[in-house]
């Protein structure tokens, strides 16, 4: 019988074995990265900024992963899980950076599992109820396009950690947007029924888009220092892409974005965030002394 060797590794000592990429002791997400704050940057501001971008990604990943075992096709199971995984990866790095920047030394899990909903800084759309597949695609189309525009600019951030995270994120987000576009076209220009559902999804999501381009004071300060990006600056670009995609998908040309109005960035969330977080945090909070 062949294949005996596959099992032998399990009982070997492995604490310091690099083959165990996910092994114990591999907990420092930013190990080896120069984490000095750029000159003139307030650590608390940078931390809050990282939490905003990190929470967007974490909450969206949590929502997207609800499609696993529930997608319309196996290819979509793989794609949506993969997108959620990319966003989760971005969230982990950003939250780790937040804990360094504010000097508290909190790690990614402190941020993810030990904050209440009102302490999260994600935009509301990231937590929006899952809805149907058209809704998921529309949300993804909007958020991935928006985040891609932000991250493209963040590659030039004076904070080398943010710049590095953005450089990685841009490739991922370009794929997320491409995926969302491919489905927006199929649904919009597919059957009459799918066209209706896609149009309804756009109508549902559109009112939540204004928030994406509201500038929080932290974002304004980070932008002035060349560390962050003012989201108002990407509105035109994001809008252009959406117009092009939606009209190609034979849907009505969308109007202007609604007036920018802050909500999630101030901790002012819709009712859907608390239960989402409760589910996420449940096991970790039940076993506060545990190690995973």
């Amino acid at each position, binding site marked *: 019988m*062949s294949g005996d060797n596959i099992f032998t590794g399990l*009982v070997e000592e492995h604490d310091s074995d690099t083959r165990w990429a996910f092994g114990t002791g591999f907990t420092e997400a930013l190990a080896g990265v120069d984490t000095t704050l750029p000159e003139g940057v307030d650590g608390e501001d940078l931390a809050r900024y990282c939490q905003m971008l990190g929470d967007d990604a974490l909450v969206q990943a949590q929502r997207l992963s609800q499609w696993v075992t*529930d997608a319309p096709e196996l*290819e979509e199971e*793989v794609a949506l899980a993969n997108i959620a995984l990319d966003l989760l990866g971005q969230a982990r790095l950003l939250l780790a950076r937040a804990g360094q920047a504010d000097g508290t030394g909190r790690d990614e899990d402190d941020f993810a599992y030990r904050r209440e909903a009102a302490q999260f800084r994600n935009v509301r759309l990231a937590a929006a109820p899952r809805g149907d597949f058209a809704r998921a695609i529309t949300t993804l189309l909007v958020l991935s396009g928006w985040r891609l525009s932000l991250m493209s600019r963040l590659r030039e951030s004076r904070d080398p950690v943010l710049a590095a995270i953005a450089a990685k994120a841009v490739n991922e987000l370009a794929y997320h947007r491409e995926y969302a576009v491919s489905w927006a076209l199929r649904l919009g220009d597919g059957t009459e029924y799918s066209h209706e559902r896609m149009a309804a999804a756009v109508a549902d999501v559109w009112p939540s888009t204004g928030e994406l381009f509201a500038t929080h004071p932290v974002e304004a300060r980070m932008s002035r220092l060349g560390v962050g990006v003012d989201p108002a600056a990407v509105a035109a670009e994001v809008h252009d892409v959406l117009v092009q995609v939606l009209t190609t998908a034979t849907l009505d040309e969308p109007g202007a974005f609604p007036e920018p109005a802050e909500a999630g960035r101030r901790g002012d969330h819709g009712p859907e965030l608390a239960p989402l977080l409760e589910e996420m945090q449940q*096991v970790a909070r039940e076993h506060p002394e545990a190690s*995973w």
Partner: protein
Amino acid sequence: MTTTAQEAPPGDDRARQADFDAKVASNQRIEPRDWMPEGYRRTLVRQVAQHAHSEIIGMQPEGDWIASAPSLRRKAILLAKVQDEAGHGLYLYAAAETLGIDRAELTERLIEGRQKYSSIFNYPSLTYADVGVIGWLVDGAAICNQVPLCRTSFGPYARAMVRICKEESFHQRQGYELLMRMMEGTEGQRAMVQDAVDRWWWPSLMMFGPPDADSPNTQQSLEWGIKIDTNDALRQKFVDMTVPQADKLGVTLPDSELAWNEESGQYDFGEPDWNEFKRVVTGSGPCNAERVARRRVAHEKGAWVRDAATAYAKKHQNSREVAV
């Protein structure tokens, strides 16, 4: 499709059968375009499809924990793993399609309960320790079953198995590593691990199928090179490999008859409850109805999306033709 060879006059079948037998006997691969006996094709379709279904249904017990994974690292590991399983399902359905059957037809057979999947996935996953134990024992047993299949006689199946086994072995390590970490944690975590081992041990042994004496198809499948080892041989192999891992972990396997046998050089172990096995296989396990129902609901709910994709592809294929 792969039926060209079969349309030849029946008189040629004897020569083709001889050619087929010689290929299998000399460990050459049968490829989709090659002639093959109808029984071989039918058995393979069933086996590969069941395997594919198992990957897809197998996403559920662990997928249930993605939302609540207790650290972001564990969430990433689990999400990646469940995604891999969807990928395995895809390779295997593709391998089955080379035998001339459509994936949509196989999906119908699954959600209508006409085709089976591994019974292990009809047990519930009750705590986060189950994620680790499924990785360690269930993926471990699956690897034990599947590694020999990398040498199976049908080419597309064998090649799919090579990649699947690599990923499965990674999953198994991740599961074991989670359990190691939990055993180093609190008393409550250690109890969770032991409880999960107690629940999953016997169902894992059942994954190898009924005892050889009750497995009527084994002989033919061995001759066809679809099966490489018997159920009992694989089960013994699994036990022999797993006992030292359990010792290292510090858990007790729930079998009072488990003991090293100097003479045979392997472990003696107790008999799984084959009545339970039959109950679960025939649809009366704890989660059978729920698992298939979830797949069915997802499939039905997604019909309009698949229809849209088909309609879009058709429209744009036509417009491309016009453009040309």
